[in-house]
């Protein structure tokens, strides 16, 4: 018997136990009641969402904001970071400013985004870009500056030009940093896309969650949360896998 148990992955066992505990707390705990969905109710809520086209539309809109915003921020931030990282002066000049904007959460600028853009997909995209562009740029720049000086010296001895140093040494060497930044950016993109709907009224899962909650649809509200968790996990798995392929030389 224990042998069989040991062969079941830990994640499965703990998921079952966690669901059981949730079920118990939801049924008998101090907050048990109409507004506390039990595990089974939440799963039922998720199941009913899965057959609901508004849910899938919302998933699509959230992913659309997250992916478009994510891609645009990478396309802007990585070349920008490479450029900034090329000289010590430009790196140090921009570091403070970028750090400043990096730590300001996008939720802060939602009021302005609502005014200037309105509660739509574009607003979500803009918020995702704001959330990521500074962090990715500064991290890229840091990676470029952090290239091993011995490697660069070797290249200088063999008379490689600045461009070749960038292409063959600085860019690959920064890629570990860039990859970390991109991974963080991907999960941030999803979160911000949800927040844009939740707080800023943009379409998507955040908005759906808000409407379900204020409409008193408790089970489905919890169902959306489960869906968000699953989406988040899938997203990070996907990114980690892609990343291992591209930067194979680190983590040797």
């Amino acid at each position, binding site marked *: 018997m224990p042998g069989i148990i040991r062969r079941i992955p830990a994640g499965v066992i703990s998921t079952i136990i966690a669901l059981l505990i949730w079920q118990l707390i939801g049924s008998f705990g101090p907050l048990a009641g109409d507004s506390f969905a039990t595990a089974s109710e939440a799963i039922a809520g998720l199941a009913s969402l899965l057959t609901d086209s508004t849910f899938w539309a919302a998933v699509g809109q959230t992913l659309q904001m997250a992916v478009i915003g994510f891609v645009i921020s990478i396309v802007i931030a990585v070349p920008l970071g490479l450029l900034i990282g090329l000289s010590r002066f430009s790196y140090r000049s921009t570091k403070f400013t970028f750090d400043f904007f990096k730590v300001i959460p996008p939720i802060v600028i939602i009021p302005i985004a609502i005014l200037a853009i309105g509660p739509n997909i574009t607003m979500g995209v803009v918020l995702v870009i704001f959330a990521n562009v500074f962090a990715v740029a500064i991290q890229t720049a840091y990676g470029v500056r952090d290239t091993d000086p*011995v*490697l660069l*010296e070797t290249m200088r001895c063999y008379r490689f030009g600045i461009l070749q140093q960038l292409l063959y040494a600085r860019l690959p060497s920064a890629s570990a940093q860039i990859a970390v930044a991109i991974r963080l950016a991907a999960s941030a993109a999803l979160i911000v896309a949800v927040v844009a709907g939740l707080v800023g009224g943009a379409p998507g899962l955040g908005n759906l969650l808000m409407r379900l909650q204020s409409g008193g649809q408790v089970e489905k509200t919890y169902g959306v949360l489960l869906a968000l968790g699953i989406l988040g996990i899938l997203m990070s798995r996907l990114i980690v896998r892609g990343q291992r392929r591209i930067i194979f030389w680190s983590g040797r």
Partner: protein
Amino acid sequence: MTIPAISIRDVTMDYPTPDGVNHVLDHVSYDVAEGHFVSIVGPSGVGKTTLLRLLTGLASPTGGEIHVRGERLTSSPEGLAVVLQDYTRSLMPWLTVAKNISLPLRRAKMSRSAVQERVQESLAEVGLTGTERSYPWQLSGGMQQRVSIARAIAVRPSILVMDEPFASVDAQTRFDLEDLVLKVRDDFGITTVMVTHDIDEAVYLSDEIVVLHGKPAAVRDVVKVEIPFPRSQMATRNDHRFAELRTRVYGMVRGLE
């Protein structure tokens, strides 16, 4: 008089430190003749690597001048190849061994097949045939160092600068590599400057040995090794002149003489 390959004139080097300067080299002067093999020896921290950095154009001296074939050095000279002390950090971990070696060749306008051939040949010479597709970090330290030597000889340099190139290989490989370096020097007439801690090695390989000593360091002595080429590991090392020279240089490095 012919122009020396490398001419070091009154070179002084200071490193800035938080409290003043670290005076490392003081009026170092020396000429490396075309085609010669010169070893630089001296105690650890004396400034050997610093001198090499100046020769390769990686740093500029605080005072004095360096000329390569009559031209004042401002950046790394044409035809230079290097094997740096930190060999593990001088190979690119994202390129295979073959790509690492062929990268400097790409600008030589060689055909793709000629590059391939050159890479194979260089790898064979350092005894690493079959590692083309490996990545540097999959090799041992000594093997990485040999890759870095293969890269250097693959470009057919006219000046080869090496900083303790054989420090982490086993004794047998070390002998083989020493002979390899002598052979390519003969084949292509390469001017070679090498830093080493191993005085036997310096005597075995060199036309001249430069002894750095003191703080700040100056050229304490230049020892001519008048043992004829070609040399051989067995015969040369048993030569009575070899033993004498080794004792002399050893004394100078230790400051006994």
